[in-house]
C-alpha cells in the first residue's frame, strides 16, 4: 500500500510518500512496524495524540482496520480555513 506523510510528519520522515508491504491488520500495528524501522519513524510517531490518520482518504482512528486499504496517510491536526 501507499503510505503518505504531510506537514511536519513528512519533514521528519523525509519523504512525502512511500510503498510499504505489510501484514499489519490495523493502523496501530502498521505504526509499530514503521517505528521499528528507523529513528526518523520512531521520532515522527513518538506521540500519536499529536497525529491524525486517514485510510483511503477518510479520517479514522488508530484502531481502524487497514485490510484491503490502498492508501494510509499520517499528518498533524489540520489547520484549514
Amino acid at each position, binding site marked *: 500500500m501507499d503510505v503518505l506523510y504531510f506537514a511536519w510528519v513528512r519533514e521528519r520522515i523525509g519523504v512525502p510518500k512511500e510503498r510499504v508491504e505489510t501484514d499489519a491488520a490495523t493502523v496501530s500495528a502498521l505504526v509499530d512496524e514503521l517505528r521499528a524501522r528507523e529513528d526518523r519513524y520512531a521520532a515522527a510517531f513518538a506521540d500519536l495524540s499529536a497525529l491524525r490518520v486517514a485510510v483511503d482518504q477518510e479520517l479514522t482512528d488508530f484502531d481502524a482496520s487497514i485490510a484491503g486499504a490502498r492508501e494510509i496517510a499520517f499528518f498533524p491536526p489540520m*489547520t*484549514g*480555513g
Partner: protein
Amino acid sequence: MRVVVQEAPFDFAAEAAGFADGRHDMGAVVTFTGIVRDVTSGDLQAMEIEHYPGMTEKALTAIAEEARQRWSLGDVLVIHRYGRLHAGDKIMMVATAARHRKDAFEAAEFLMDYLKSRAPFWKKEHAGDSADWVAARDEDEAALTRW
C-alpha cells in the same frame, strides 16, 4: 454547489457577486473570507499551505453536502487555495444562500468550523529566519461540539 481547490488566486468580488446575483428565491447570502494575517507584525514572508490532493476535495464536498442536509440552502460555494501565500492574500471563502438569514449564517459557520479542523490543510509560517507549522487551536476543535 461548487467546491474548488486551487493554487491560483480567486477573484473574491466576482465570486461573491456571481453567487449573490440573479436570485429571486433566496433572501439571504452570507460570505466568509479568510485572509493571510501577519501575526508576526510585519515579519511574515510567506504562508505555505500544504494539502492532501484527492482527500481535500472529498472532505470539502462532504462538509458542503452535510450543510445542505442540515439547513435549507439554495446554494453553497467553497473555494480554498494551497501553495505559497502572502500577508493580505485571500486563502479561502465560503458562501451560502438561503431563504432566511438564520440558515445562511449557521451553515456558513458550520462550514468554517468543519473545514478548519476536518479538511486536510496545514499551514506553515515563514517569518524572519524561521518557518513554523501553525498549531491547531483547541478552540477550533471545541467549536465542532456546537453542531
